[in-house]
């Protein structure tokens, strides 16, 4: 065969290929063209946003505290429901979901025209019914909606916070939020929302103008990406113990402690070496679950009135009472100002406490202690142990007499501030309170801004800031306010060598597969260089408070097998409700003695005497931390 003939055969083959294409082209475009044209006009591309699954929250041991599951839910798009079909759609939905049609109509009205809202969860059978009867459910869609679940119920509810529907204010703050998605409203859920949100995906599918899916064409799915995992510093087992001790201690105290009207309180356990919060509890509490599908106004109202939504550990501001004396103690040592009482012994000075303060050069008349009898000869160390008001008043007087009217009159307040009081600690939780440390400047502001906060006699014509006010500061009464967390931070700085922490409840952020995204480290807010005299004595003095023969915390801790491991300070602050004095119970504890690691702060509002109302709760928590059997109250 000649080459020309071979090429001819090949040409013939090419002609056939071309004719095949041309014929097919004619068939597709001309013969069947109108059919394809009609099909193309019918097609509508719908995009449905797939909400991202919210990231998990785990405790420090990797135990899941908050997770998300997908549930099929009915989403109503009112914009797609013609007015004349509204009644029939409501009727159909009411029959399917077994909801009163009037209630449904109310939900429709509440959402408003054009709104898109999640109506509720549905099961497989209901989903099948809707999908096979789409013509009866115009504007009704079935979507998988991620739902938050809290496997541990109300455990650490105040730390976790809660989520809710995206509000206009949320959108203003973060325009990337999805209108029908959810957002953290409080606690870790809010603080770390940007990590938890994840990336939404979308589902693109072809539909007929009626909204019906076209069978045989797979929708195009762009996967959503689950949010990152937030790993807390909190230990679930310790948290369980803390919450249980707080709850039971409050109930027990209300029944057994003199003058206790306890209804609420807070507890914090912090690692003094790292600034990590190991547990944090506030009572009464709430179920974060309740917010997921919406909480009723009545329920919300009821819980609000009991302060259940407030994390009292960071939002509760109480006069710290005698727990503040440790700060006055620190001031005395660091500034070298000791009591100026009758006798003078080492170190610095002692006084003979007979229960009366003699203050001849005070602006006001002399004041009496609450005790009928004196403590005898006390120095700074024993004064802390027996919580002798006379001694610390005398320190305050010393400061007042030497520095009155000069910056030196604020020694105690300055030390309190350097230990983190009078300002939020900066913990990674929202709505933290700042507490209050009063001084002349504050009172002067009040005269202008808030005269109602001052006693009438102060405003005119009497002196504004007097020695008695400073004496109140020295023992943590009067206008001094602190949160339980602030006192935990202040005490931890006293026993960890001077580090004032900005504490953290979150340790790190991880991807869903466990790779580190961000390491959240507590920040050093301030560093105090303690003198030798303070550093070497404070822990022993705190231990003596718990264990000394006259120690104020002795009784509460006597049940422990090794109470000498624990130091601490009681506090009983007095507020007046309708003229009646009511005591708030405080205890700040530190342990273990040889290697101080934990600080535990408990406040029971209106819980009576600190040694009786708060110390037993701290004792239980320390028993747990030290591996002892936890004895009942």
């Amino acid at each position, binding site marked *: 065969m000649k080459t020309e003939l071979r*090429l001819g055969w*090949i*040409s013939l083959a090419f002609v056939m290929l071309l004719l095949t294409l041309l014929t097919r082209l004619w068939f597709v475009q001309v013969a069947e063209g109108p059919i394809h044209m009609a099909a193309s006009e019918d097609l509508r591309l719908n995009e449905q946003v797939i909400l991202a699954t919210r990231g998990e929250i785990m405790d420090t041991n990797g135990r899941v505290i908050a997770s998300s599951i997908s549930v099929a839910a009915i989403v109503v798009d009112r914009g797609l429901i013609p007015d004349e079909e509204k009644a029939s759609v409501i009727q159909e939905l009411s029959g399917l979901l077994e909801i009163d049609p009037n209630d449904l109509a109310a939900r429709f009205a509440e959402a408003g025209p054009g709104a898109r809202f999640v109506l509720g969860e549905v099961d497989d059978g209901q989903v099948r019914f809707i999908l096979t009867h789409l013509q009866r459910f115009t504007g009704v869609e079935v979507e998988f909606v991620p739902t938050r679940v809290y496997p541990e119920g109300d455990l650490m509810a105040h730390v976790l916070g809660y989520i809710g529907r995206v509000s206009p204010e949320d959108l203003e703050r973060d325009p990337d939020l999805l209108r029908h998605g959810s957002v953290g409203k409080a606690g870790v859920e809010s603080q770390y929302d940007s990590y938890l949100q994840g990336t939404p995906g979308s589902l693109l599918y072809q539909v007929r103008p009626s909204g019906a899916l076209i069978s045989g064409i797979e929708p195009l799915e762009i996967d959503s990406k689950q949010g990152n995992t937030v790993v807390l510093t909190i230990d679930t087992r310790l948290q369980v113990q803390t919450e249980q001790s707080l709850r039971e201690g409050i109930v027990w105290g209300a029944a057994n402690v003199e003058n206790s009207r306890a209804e609420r309180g807070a507890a914090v356990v912090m690692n003094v070496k790292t600034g990590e919060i190991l547990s944090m509890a506030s009572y009464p509490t709430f179920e974060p679950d309740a917010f997921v599908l919406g909480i009723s106004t009545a329920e919300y109202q009821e819980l609000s009135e009991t302060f259940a939504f407030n994390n009292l550990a960071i939002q509760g501001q109480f006069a710290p009472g005698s727990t503040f004396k440790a700060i006055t103690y620190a001031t005395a040592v660091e500034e070298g100002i000791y009591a100026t009482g009758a006798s003078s012994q080492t170190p610095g000075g002692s006084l003979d406490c007979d229960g009366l303060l003699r203050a001849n050069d005070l602006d006001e008349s002399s004041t009496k202690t609450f005790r009928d009898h004196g403590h005898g000869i006390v120095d700074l160390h024993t004064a802390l142990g027996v919580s002798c008001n006379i001694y610390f008043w005398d320190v305050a007087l010393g400061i007042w007499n030497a520095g009155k009217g000069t910056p030196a009159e604020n020694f105690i307040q300055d030390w309190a501030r350097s230990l983190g009081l009078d300002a939020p600690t900066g913990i990674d939780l929202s709505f933290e309170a700042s507490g209050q440390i009063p001084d002349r400047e504050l009172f002067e502001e009040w005269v202008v801004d808030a005269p109602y906060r001052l006693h009438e006699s102060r405003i005119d014509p009497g002196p504004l800031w007097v020695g008695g006010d400073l004496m109140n500061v020295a023992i943590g009464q009067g206008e001094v306010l602190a949160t339980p967390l602030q006192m935990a931070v202040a005490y931890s700085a006293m026993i960890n060598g001077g580090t004032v922490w900005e504490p953290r409840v979150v340790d790190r952020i991880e991807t869903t597969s466990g790779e580190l995204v961000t390491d959240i480290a507590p920040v050093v807010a301030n560093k105090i260089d303690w003198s030798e005299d303070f550093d070497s004595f404070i822990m022993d003095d705190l231990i003596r408070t718990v264990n000394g023969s006259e120690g104020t915390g002795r009784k509460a801790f006597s049940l422990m097998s090794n109470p000498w491991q624990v130091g601490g300070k009681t506090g009983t602050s007095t507020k007046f409700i309708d003229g009646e004095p009511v005591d708030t119970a405080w205890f700040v504890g530190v342990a273990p003695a040889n290697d101080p690691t934990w600080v535990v702060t408990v406040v029971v509002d209106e819980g009576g005497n600190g040694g009786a109302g708060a110390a037993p709760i701290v004792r239980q928590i320390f028993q747990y931390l030290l591996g002892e059997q936890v004895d009942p109250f």
Partner: protein
Amino acid sequence: MTILSPQAPRSDNELWSKRSPPDVVLLVSVFALMAFGILMVYSASRDALALAGLDEGMLLTRQAIFAGIGVVALIGMSLMDYRYLQHLSMIIYGSTLFFLALVFTQSSRNGAKRWLFLPGFSLQPSEFAKVAVILVLAALLAPAREDGMRWKVVGVCLGFLAAPSALIFLQPDLGTALVFGFVAIVMFFAAGTTFRQLFVLVGTAIIGMALILNLGLLADYQEQRLRSVLSLGADARDADYNQLHSLTTIGSGQLLGKGLFQGALTQRAFVPEQETDFIFTAVGEQFGFAGAATVLAAYAAILFRLVRISATSQDRFGMLVAIGVAALFAFHMFVNIGMTMAIMPVTGLPLPFMSAGGSSLLAMSMAIGISHSIWLRRTKKLTKVRVP
């Protein structure tokens, strides 16, 4: 012009002085398809790019640059004496194998390792391998007997085909491996195999395919694509999603099309990969049967010009290269356009000069340039191709 060559061909200057005029129909057809391709790529990508917040002319610019490079390569190849390539074919073949092997060291894209990533751009060596295989087969077959080829020659050629086919098959790129088969059979026939030998070769290939299918050597998606086309017509709903969309898009263009930038489906990126493998859908929807048939006519013109070049070549090497390039075009055109109209499986073979992408455009331009070089250096009088 000096090119490293063990055996210099007869003086090019002598031929050049008696050169034929350029093949205007071939060049005009190619340049027209390139220009139209740029426009189609733009129409198929601008809305999607704008939607993604990118420059809507991004792909347009890229494709225009590729076309510019392609034109330069085409003209450069035309001016070079194609006979050097016969001597260089083994070196070209060896380096092709090297680059094909190199892609396995690269990261994969869409589950396949087909690209060489270089700073700023990426190359698909398999596109250039198609040209290299034509050159090496032509070099091997040129000395063979014109009538009735020896089995030994066929065997050697198959050996040379096996290595690149295997490397490409492993990428995995079924389409390109099939290109080699088709091109080889056309070249074998042109070089002098008997019909009997041809039947044996084609029969072996079909049995081989059947074995591959049944022994599960294909990746799932490859097997599924083949099967979906084999069962097409019985139940259109089983056809591939892409093809269903593609059919609707082309069909809706009807006789005269919807007009440039008026293709509702093209503008919405209804067909996946519509700026690359499915670029023909953009032609079909916007310009209808009239436009699509015109594009087919341009491909037909290129094909028959290549056959003419083959028939008038001064030597057997040139004859075989030109018919090999023609086979390459015919296969790409038929499989790609056939795929968009659901009569061929989805293989990922680009439509020459129209699909977005640089490697294919550059390789095809070089192939046309080499063919045109053969035309410029022809000595035979143009004889009519005999149609059987």
